[in-house]
């Protein structure tokens, strides 16, 4: 599991530092100047620079190189960065020199709240919907929901966000247009539309999967036994059929988490939510490496953690698996 985190972060780290130049933000144009040559006295003037200032600027560049240990080989730098992270030091933002950990601790909870709400909405809508559809498979409700689910799946997330934003913020002004942080209720309220935007397509995915699994489970013999016991259909659906059918859906919830983070980037933009997604986007555009890397770590770690939770949930749902754990 940790191998994944390392691999992913190493990938990101290398990408940022090899493909781009981390110094660009700090020293601007001069990062691309061959300062080694300048300082060695080989080159006097560089095109585009103010005459006479080149050497001075290059000295700043050399100092920056030292300060950020940029002369060390890549794996060493990576190792140093990991070591610092393990101690909770995520470095400072290149742009405003704020400690990254502060930024994270401000923004992460909001994103997590948003995602929690989205998954809750997704499952909360999907479960009754799937049960109703599977109960009378191929009935009118089922066929209508197939079409409905299809539509929800086909609409791009940001488009849905824009539509919801238009109707519920601009046109009818039911929800606030930006994040309000006063108390839990106003936070939930501010996040609701965004959660809906993320959650409804999730609900469509979950519903289709769950419905199929429910129908498969309904073919099992123990369902007939339950009916022979004279139990009501509702009881059978919710207490006997649902639990064994949830496996596939639970896996998808886990796998979708990465996608949720992606989606939240755009959604947080649309609804002006100061969460980690928005921070990530802004930082990438600004080449603010420490922030970007920290966000990547958090996101990948979240993915790994959630998948582990999913595994645990498996053993709760299926006692046959429990034996081996």
């Amino acid at each position, binding site marked *: 599991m940790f191998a994944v985190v390392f691999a992913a972060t190493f990938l990101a780290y290398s990408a940022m530092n090899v493909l781009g130049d981390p110094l660009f933000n700090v020293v601007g144009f001069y990062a691309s100047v061959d300062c080694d040559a300048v300082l060695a006295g080989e080159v006097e003037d560089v095109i585009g620079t103010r005459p006479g200032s080149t050497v001075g600027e290059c000295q700043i560049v050399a100092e920056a190189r030292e300060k950020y240990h940029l002369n060390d080989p890549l794996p060493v730098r990576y190792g140093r960065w990991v070591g610092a992270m393990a101690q909770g030091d995520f470095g400072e933002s290149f742009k405003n020199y704020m400690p990254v950990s502060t930024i994270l601790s401000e923004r992460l909870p909001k994103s997590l709240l948003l995602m929690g709400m989205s998954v809750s909405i997704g499952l909360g809508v999907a479960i009754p919907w799937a049960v109703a559809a599977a109960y009378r498979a191929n009935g009118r409700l089922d066929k209508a929901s197939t079409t409905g689910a299809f539509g929800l799946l086909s609409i*791009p997330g940001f488009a849905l966000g*824009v539509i919801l934003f238009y109707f519920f913020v601009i046109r009818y002004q039911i929800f606030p247009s930006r994040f309000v942080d006063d108390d839990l209720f106003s936070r939930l309220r501010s996040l609701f539309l965004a959660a809906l935007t993320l959650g409804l397509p999730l609900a469509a995915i979950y519903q289709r999967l769950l419905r199929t699994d429910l129908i498969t489970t309904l073919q099992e013999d123990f369902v007939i036994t339950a009916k022979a016991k004279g139990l009501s259909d509702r009881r059978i659906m919710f207490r006997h059929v649902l639990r064994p059918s949830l496996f596939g859906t639970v896996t998808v919830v886990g796998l979708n988490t990465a996608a949720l983070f992606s989606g939240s980037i755009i959604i947080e933009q649309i609804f002006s939510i100061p969460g980690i997604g928005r921070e990530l986007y802004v930082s*990438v555009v600004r080449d603010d490496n420490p922030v970007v890397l920290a966000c990547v770590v958090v996101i990948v770690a979240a993915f790994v953690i959630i998948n582990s939770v999913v595994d645990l949930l498996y053993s709760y749902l299926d006692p046959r698996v429990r034996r081996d754990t």
Partner: protein
Amino acid sequence: MTLNTSEPIAVESPPEAADGPDADKVAPRRLGISFWTAIGWILLVSAAALVAPWLPIADPEEIGAGGRLDGPGWDNWFGTDSNGRDMFSRTIWGARVSLMVGLVSILVGFLIGGVVGVVSGYRRGFIDRTLSFIVFVILSFPSLVLFLLIISIVGQGLWVVSLTLSVLVVPSVARLGRAITIAFSEREFVAAARLLGATNRRVMVREILPNVLIPMSVILLLGLGITIVAEGGLAYLGLSVADGFSWGKMIQIGAAPRTLRTAPWAAFFPIGAMFLTVLSLNWVGDRLRQYFDIREQGIGSR
């Protein structure tokens, strides 16, 4: 007197894959009229995008083709945007970029993913484990983050964007290719071919590939929908192809708060176009999958 026990009708229904829209239970024999409608729409949009330069429509860049933010009317069928440009023509021109980027991305992804999957499934062992691990790492990376990274570093040309987006599809294609290859390499005709002395590579190309292509075509269609949406998202963030505009970019322009308030159609028309196109692609891909599933029993993505 009939008993109505409301027990659901027993129907064969194999468990579905976790990606893509799921198939309905009993696959119909015919493809259905909605299928052909969807195909029609796709062809219409593609054709319009293809011949756009020769269509008798307004210049999409021409400022002042109508008033600013005019509503839909006889002069401008879809209205105008904040720069007075004709929305109808822009929608058609936007299709060019959206479709092109989507298509290139999917083809590249298909190619890479196909090779990775088939090799992985046929060779098994260390290669398989390594490739699977890499795929898993990619899956755990939020795709948009990856895109942001690459594009902000390398630039916003057509090929960069397409290549980047192809990453979206590679894991699914690879996974499917691998599973199908494994299922097939157990079958008799592969063993027979090997007995006759065919080399590994020969077997892969001549025996396995043809049977792999049908389900992959379905993924191609569904994946195209995904890449179009992904490109739209990138464009919305301003990170897609720099020159030219796609539907996503139009949505970004149209969704600016003031524009949105007074002229919602500037955003809604490109949204509608994208939605209908993606819907059609999903529909066609899904129907095809049902249709072929009945024949090819046992070939699933599990």
